[in-house]
């Protein structure tokens, strides 16, 4: 019998996935009971995941061998620093679910509410399982859990495009999953193991090169698609814009980040493998990231639909993370890994705040929502703070990322990259200003806007907490950095 942290780790993964099964029958009995159950499971799971992260930050990574089978024979769960960053973001998920209770009553018809709760819980379980497993195939299974649930959740969108967007997302997602599965099969044939650490160890001594490169390519490409790294982002804007706001918050905040976590795992596996030219890959990745930053920013600023704008901003922000990974030095990797967490907080705040505006007025474009700032001061205030954070103005969480990436780019002697990072954020800010201007300094054009008031507390509190966190995390950035840094050092081969 292993230690309690290991037991906690398994429970955290098993609880939401098994708990989801009860959502369907419970909803047949009573909406209220089912909602309470969903909230309970989410809260306990997120608290557990948070505790796992706290433990990682205090005593370092730890493993749990499921069923008592030691590492290469059985499945090893492993909470490392990058998983811990996702665990740290688990409370974001919980807040989104709390917010979603009223929102889904409003936006989802009764017959579809049971699956909605179930899919959310499975998504949570998938995200955590993906982040906390040390076994490559187990990682694939959990990847399918969060992917499938994400495709289906997109279909909850009100607009007619939702199903088509969901389908496109599904096709791209299934294709990338297939690449990952192919790579897993190949890697298994090459190494005879599915455990990632064992795999890395066995890849380090002479196996044929070209298949290793192929396996690397397929795995990296698969995860890059999941992460929507330019130009593999095509599925993202429609899917994230079509989904209901709480779902968009989870998709943009957490689900795309899994691709990034997957890329970090890829680095771990192929660190010492012969034939894989990581520096060239990194160069390419950072270049793609830089293009994504500019591209995402430019497309974001021509949108009138704020959700599309936020979706393109996610493309841009994934670009930031890609640049950080591609720089592959201490500052760059630190910036990239803390942005996994920071962006989750910020983007969730943005989507939830926007969702609250839509909830009250029914509108979601900049021009329709003019003058809303006076009517819903707290919501729009929170939105403004998150806007400032997402473009990286000090002293917000977004600034911390930008700072680390800029230092990383300068340290890697790539000043052009640094300039791209800094200035595209400015372009974004100027155009985000459009939103703020329209909300605060323009007269309202719709009667619904005139009549709107801040949403009730159960929706408002998550918005305010998240946007407050996106501000506070700029000042207490050492928390995520402290967690990420040992992991970054490990990736760099220093410990």
């Amino acid at each position, binding site marked *: 019998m292993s230690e309690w942290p290991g037991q906690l780790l398994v429970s955290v993964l098993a609880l939401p996935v098994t708990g989801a099964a009860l959502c369907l029958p419970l909803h047949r009995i009573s909406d209220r009971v089912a909602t309470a159950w969903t909230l309970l499971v989410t809260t306990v799971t997120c608290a557990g995941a948070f505790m796992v992260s706290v433990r990682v930050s205090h005593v370092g990574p730890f493993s749990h061998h499921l069923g008592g089978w030691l590492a290469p024979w059985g499945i090893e769960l492993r909470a490392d620093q990058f998983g811990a960053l996702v665990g740290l973001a688990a409370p974001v998920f919980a807040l989104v679910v709390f917010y979603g209770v009223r929102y889904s009553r409003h936006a989802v018809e009764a017959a579809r509410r049971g699956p909605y709760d179930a899919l959310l819980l499975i998504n949570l379980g998938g995200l955590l399982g993906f982040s906390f497993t040390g076994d490559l195939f187990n990682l694939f299974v959990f990847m399918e859990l969060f992917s499938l649930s994400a495709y289906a959740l997109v279909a909850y969108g009100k607009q007619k495009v939702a199903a088509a967007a969901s389908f496109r997302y599904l096709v791209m997602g299934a294709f990338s999953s297939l690449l990952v599965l192919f790579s897993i099969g190949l890697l298994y044939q090459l190494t005879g193991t599915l455990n990632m650490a064992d795999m890395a160890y066995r890849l380090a001594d002479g196996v044929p090169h070209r298949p290793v490169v192929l396996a690397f390519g397929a795995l990296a490409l698969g995860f890059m698609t999941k992460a929507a790294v330019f130009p593999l982002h095509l599925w993202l804007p429609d899917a994230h814009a079509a989904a209901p706001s709480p779902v968009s918050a989870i998709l943009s905040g957490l689900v795309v980040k899994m691709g990034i976590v997957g890329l970090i795992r890829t680095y771990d596996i192929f660190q010492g493998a012969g034939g894989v030219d990581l520096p060239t890959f990194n160069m390419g990745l950072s270049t793609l990231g830089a293009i994504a930053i500019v591209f995402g920013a430019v497309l974001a600023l021509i949108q009138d639909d704020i959700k599309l704008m936020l979706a393109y901003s996610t493309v841009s922000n994934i670009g930031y993370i890609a640049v950080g990974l591609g720089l592959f030095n201490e500052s760059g990797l630190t910036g990239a890994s803390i942005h996994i967490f920071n962006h989750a907080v910020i983007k969730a705040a943005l989507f939830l705040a926007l969702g609250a505006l839509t909830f009250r007025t029914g509108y979601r474009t900049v021009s329709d929502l003019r003058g809303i700032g006076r009517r819903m001061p707290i919501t729009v205030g929170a939105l403004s703070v998150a806007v400032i954070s997402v473009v990286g103005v000090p*002293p917000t969480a977004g600034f911390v990322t930008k700072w*680390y990436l800029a230092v990383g780019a300068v340290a890697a002697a790539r000043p052009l990259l640094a300039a791209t990072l800094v*200035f595209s954020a400015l372009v974004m*800010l100027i155009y985000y200003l459009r939103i703020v201007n329209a909300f605060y*300094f323009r007269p309202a054009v719709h009667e619904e806007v005139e009549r709107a008031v801040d949403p009730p507390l159960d929706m408002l509190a998550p918005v305010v907490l998240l946007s407050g966190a996106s501000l506070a995390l700029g000042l207490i*950035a050492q928390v995520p*950095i402290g967690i990420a840094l040992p992991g970054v050092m490990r990736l760099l081969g220093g410990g």
Partner: protein
Amino acid sequence: MPVEVWDIRPALAPMVSFVCALLVFIGGSRAGWRRFWSMSAALLKFIIVASMLPGTVGGVAYTFRFAEFAPGIGIGFRADALGMAFATVSSLLWVVATVYSIGYMKGERSLGRFFGFFALCVSATVALALAENLLTLFIFYEVLTISAYPLVVHDETPEALRAGRTYFTYTLTGGGVILLGIAMTYVVSDGVLAFGHNGIVPPDTTPAVLAILFVMLTLGFGVKAAIMPLHGWLPRAMVAPTPVSALLHAVAVVKAGAFGVVRTVHDVFGVELLRQTWLPDALAYLAAFTIIAASVMALLQDNLKRRLAYSTVSQLSYVLLGIALLNPWAAVAAVVHIANQAVQKVTMFFAAGAIQRTTGKTNISEMSGIGRRMPATMGAFGVAALGFTGMPLLAGFISKWHMSVGGFDSGMWWVALVMAASALLNAAYWFPMLYLAFFKPVSEEPTLGEARPSLLYPTLVCAVLVILLGLVSDLPGMPLSIARTAVAQAFGM
């Protein structure tokens, strides 16, 4: 070298106005609440800052670090002489400006927002003045940029929104350049960003890197300091309400830029390191050019606030010129001019605002005879204008005198010529206006009399300050004495 003393006051000072901003945001729709918190925070903050003065002049640096922003870089505050020179002025003028804006803004809408961001601006200004390292300075520099925006666009007219956009484009681009410069500094200095009087940049940096760094940092800060040709946003930002213009032009925003350049030269590079390069000379020429060119531009303006804006552009470059000469005398002039220009310019803006509120006039050509109608207001205006021309016994003289001596001392005789030319130009654009105001007949409109007390008294207080800064500026605790301490520390004397 100053003695470091652990003390919470440097952090407390910005915190006071930050808390005030929060309180005003929460309950700002009620006038009494708004007034009470704004006034008491302004006073409390001034008391806190002033209480640190004796120690600072005596060579103590109060230091306080709290949040570790990231491993190795804390958000830290440190009240040394240079920082205190700026912090004292801004916190004192906040008291005066608060009284003035309560009077000026009476009856306007969105006042909660106005006073909240006003307090936030001052909070950021004092925080950046007392910043202990380059990153903290930058963080609050950007906070200032952002929180000044709602003030610029306060009127919500399309013109104001355009001005706000211009303001943001300029200042945020400058901020981006600074950020890159700081990142580069961080890499070059191997992770050190805390200000030290020998500079952060190590002496063995290659000249090319040194040049890039210097250009990035000075030009980045130079945007807010409105160094030509980066000054375009400032005259346009004139659409803001007058107390905001006073704040923007005299105390907070533009001074933050000038202050940033001073910090860059003294505490990032260090005087010794820069002496071996051509970089400060280039900055000096640019500053001298700005002093003259902006004065010429000011001559061409009829709108009073625009003329004041160009005058500001010109005056700010005094600070840059003084610091770029790398001479103790000129450096004293630069630091003391932060205070002198602030007080003089605030006086003029207050007077201009009082005229606008009382008579509705904004153009100089319409102001004939206004001095007879509002003698006290225009008198205060006149004192400040005389100060700018460098009249002895007034604040501006102190700056010009030290600057000229510094120019001769470092073998740059042209500095004195620039000073003289600037004095003449100042006279050329203020004296005709004073003549118009006092000696031309009153226009035919009915006489209205002086501005209301809440506008008049702050203006008069500022005018008195202009005189005091000219007479007793070297008393301990007054700007000149602080500047001397700061310069002595920077030059290792």
